């Protein structure tokens, strides 16, 4: 069954069409990659999917619910989490606190309960800490628990952001260039982590430039070029698709493929 359906999404910026009627589906428990040459509209589409931007035309349907035009906080509650191309961590919080903040949408103690430390709030807080610790271990960064996000190395910050996204208990995890700036070892660690996350029942959409990683982890790939979907299918077919190869050769940065 498809968890996410993107129907004829169109997005304009000052008359320029960034995404031009793209449609695709994401099936439960799979990893779907969104690739394309620079300026293909991947990031725009990604922001539309995660409600950080709204489409001019088209619909986004998540688990049977039309979520077009919803606010990000509502999307998160429905079970869609995201990370950012430029990590948006809370630098002055520890790794643990960052992940704990991710639990915001799935917990409920308000200001009064927090200020008076009522038993319900204290109990909830204990659960949040426990869950955050578990997620740090899942991503293999538990030794950074009490370190400020600003003091963590770049590669681990990306993993921390994924841990924070997982704390929202998503059914769909959207990753915006998670391997950007990672070395080969870190990328391998990331791939391992993504498998583990998928095996826990989380569906993943990933926008990524690292073709090695994309070909290795994805079950299916959508290729965008100039805002339009030019191909869709499993990695080995996409690799051989002449339309895709032409699109990548057409740009200067062709060593991506």
């Amino acid at each position: 069954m498809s968890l996410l359906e993107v129907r004829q999404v169109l997005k304009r910026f000052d008359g320029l069409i960034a995404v031009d009627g793209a449609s695709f589906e994401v099936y439960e428990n799979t990893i779907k990659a969104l690739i394309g040459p620079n300026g293909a509209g991947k990031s725009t589409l990604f922001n539309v999917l995660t409600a950080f931007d709204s489409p001019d035309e088209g619909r986004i349907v998540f688990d049977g619910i039309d979520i077009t035009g919803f606010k990000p906080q509502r999307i998160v509650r429905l079970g869609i989490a995201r990370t950012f191309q430029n990590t948006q961590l809370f630098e002055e919080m520890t790794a643990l606190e960052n992940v704990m903040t991710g639990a915001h949408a799935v917990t409920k103690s308000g200001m009064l309960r927090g200020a008076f430390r009522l038993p319900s709030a204290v109990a909830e807080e204990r659960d949040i800490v426990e869950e955050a610790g578990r997620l740090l271990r899942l991503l293999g960064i538990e030794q950074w628990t009490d370190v400020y996000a600003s003091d963590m190395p770049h590669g681990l910050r990306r993993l921390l952001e994924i841990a924070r996204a997982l704390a929202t208990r998503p059914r769909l995890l959207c990753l915006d260039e998670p391997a950007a700036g990672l070395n080969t070892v870190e990328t391998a660690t990331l791939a391992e982590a993504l498998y583990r996350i998928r095996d826990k029942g989380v569906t993943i959409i990933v926008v990524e430039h690292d073709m090695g990683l994309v070909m290795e982890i994805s079950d299916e790939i959508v290729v965008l070029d100039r805002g339009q979907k030019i191909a869709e299918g499993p990695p080995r077919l996409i690799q051989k698709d002449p339309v895709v190869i032409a699109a990548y050769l057409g740009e200067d940065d062709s060593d991506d493929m």
Partner: protein
Amino acid sequence: MMRKGGVDLRILVLLALVMVSLCVVPLLTSDRYQLKVLTLVGINVITVTGMALLFGFAGQVSLGHAAFVGIGAYTSAYVVSTLGWPWLIGPVAAVVVAALGGFLLALPSLRLRGHYLAMATLGFGEIMRVVFVEASAVTGGPDGFSGIPYPSLAGLEIDSPAGNYWLVWGVAVVSMVLSANLVRSRSGRAMRALHGSESGAMACGIDVTAVKVRVFVLSAALAGLAGALHAHVIGFISPASFSLHVSVLIVAMAVAGGTRSLVGPALAATLLTLIPYADAVIPGLSRPLLDAIQAYQEDAYGLAISAVMLFAPAGLAGLLRRAVAVRGWRLA
């Protein structure tokens, strides 16, 4: 002993010592002036605690906070003095009205950011100052509101300086403890998340606007509470007590105190409040020197704040954290 993610036991002992010394001050001195000055310090600690939540934790600016102190002061004075209602209703009404004012200001202004938010709050402060002057039927106009009764609880008037001191510091300590709990709670993390990254906060499912409004309201409520105490402890208020100058001073206390801290701003509030009343804490201070300090009060503030920012860019909280870190303590 250290609890994970908790506060070092030694810090708690230190805090307990501070509390005990706060409590015994009135037993050591019976000087009315000294106690009144230290009571004023307590009142400003309450205000700055609200500003620390707003500025230091949530990263929002208000250059009109004196207006909320004023709203609280006039509301409580009016309710108790003019309407003759029991004392406790005064501060409660002050908190409610100040919070409402904060809500009404927050709704439109928090869509603004940085300088624009600062300008909106500055404008609000000026509007309220004019209101305090013009609405003379309620506020007493430019001449001020005098003869405001002392606080009284359960029919017992607290007219001694020591009683007022204990009352104000009791409220100040409770405000700080509740705020400290808050910043370490789920709602507190949401506030701190705004400061860190609004996009990141949104990705955590945090309703950024709602959290901004809430922390603004809370901060206005604390300012209103401080204003009410001010009115009853001093017995007289006038528009001059709630001018732009006071708003700037409140922000200065929070900045000099440092972000992500409640203790730092409380210390800064203490230091800056004491400047014009230096003779209350420095016994041998010569009269001409005190006159000079009072004449150049603003310059003294500026100098003190510059000194803090120069030698401790992270504010007094930064200094504290460093001092504590050297000893391997952890001030969470």
